């Protein structure tokens, strides 16, 4: 399976925090509750489904998942 990378678009994120709830390992929230990808956004092996789950539940379509 190819490696996935996630990125949260800061112009789109409104802090719904659905991603943090569904994939806590992959996202961090700042003091305002807005989401950022954890680390450099590389998705560790085994967490691919959670990355897609977060992407498909973001109401603002702020999460990009790319395959490398």
């Amino acid at each position, binding site marked *: 399976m190819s490696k996935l990378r996630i990125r949260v678009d800061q112009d789109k994120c409104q802090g719904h925090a*659905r991603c943090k709830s569904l994939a806590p390992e992959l996202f961090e929230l700042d003091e305002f509750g807005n989401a950022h990808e954890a680390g450099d956004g590389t998705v560790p092996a085994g967490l691919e489904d959670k990355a897609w789950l977060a992407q498909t539940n973001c109401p*603002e379509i702020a999460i990009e998942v790319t395959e490398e």
Partner: protein
Amino acid sequence: MSDSPSASFLPEHPPVTDWVHDFDHTDPVWTDDPFPIWETLRAASPVVHTERFLGCYMPTTYQAVKEIAYDTEHFSSRRVIVRDVRPEISARAPPITSDPPEHKPAKQVLLPPFTPDAMKRLEPRVRAICNELIDEFIADGHCDAAARYTKHIPVRAIAHMLGIPEKDGDLFIKWIHQILELGIKNEEELMNGVREMTGYFMAHLEQRKLQPGDDLISQLLRAKGPGGQPLTDEHVLGSLRLLLIAGIDTTWSAIGSSLWHLARTPADRERLVAEPALIPIAIEEFLRAYSPVTMAREVMKETTISGCPVKAGNMVLLSFPAANRDPAMFPDADKVVIDRKENRHAAFGLGIHRCVGSNLARMEMQVAIEEWLKRIPDFRLDPAGKVTWSEGTVRGPRQLPVLFGKNA
């Protein structure tokens, strides 16, 4: 104030016969069961219009709702309730009634106290509140779950956050009823509610200035506005007004609709009792299918939404609940699928006005459902009672008679 107390009452609304051209979200048919109405409206057009409420549009699709929510240039939030009258704007509630550029700094101040981590600290108190409430009626084998349970959870949680006696919650409930329900048609009720609430909070503000604490009122008084200046009293009062108006009957409705669904759907109830880890996912589905909150916008400049012309001077009934039932966005939109995988529901809004209390509401819903199911796993609607729903802007059960225990 007028001489006659009845002078501020507006005429009763005539019953609706043509929903597509004359919709009315305060009509009893809508209040009782809005879902088939939204289907009819959606089939007619992505945007419909009524001459009621001095002229009002309603987007009927997820796409049209989203276009309006993202367009702060043509659509203002200065009025967030569709009413019969449009008096001078007096009691603001920033940031919900703010437009850019004032919106962002007003919202930034409120966000840190409502992050998921901050809510985790409040969670044990909410769990205790739920159990204290259940203790009061569990031996009876029946209760009105709206009056005895769902109604009190958000009131007490917010009172706790504000450092106000939880017993003052009954006052909050009265003001909310005056402002959100009676206020649609009765200006005097609305102004009385706002005036009493302002006086109450002003006294707490003065007290916190003398004796600051860790509560949210003290935090707001310490917070800095855009220019590094402390917030004005009027700003703090406005934000407190918002927390109360937006944070109470909304969540009370959401918890109530979830219990209503579980009372009449044994398969879902049994599954959540057996798999409590599924509760957070089920709650997102309850939020989608029974979204409590409809917002409003005012059209400032003519534009086009989903191909439909929209003219200035009209209000917009921004129905996130209708958007969340759009089959173009959600397969089986009218079915409640408690393990729905893809769920970009808009129950907390879309764009810059995303509900500031969404993390609080989610925590309260999760805790309220978890604690109820732990102690009352088997319950059903009381066939001898009647479920009633609130009218207008926030939808949820106001009477929810259920049987359990020896009556289950």
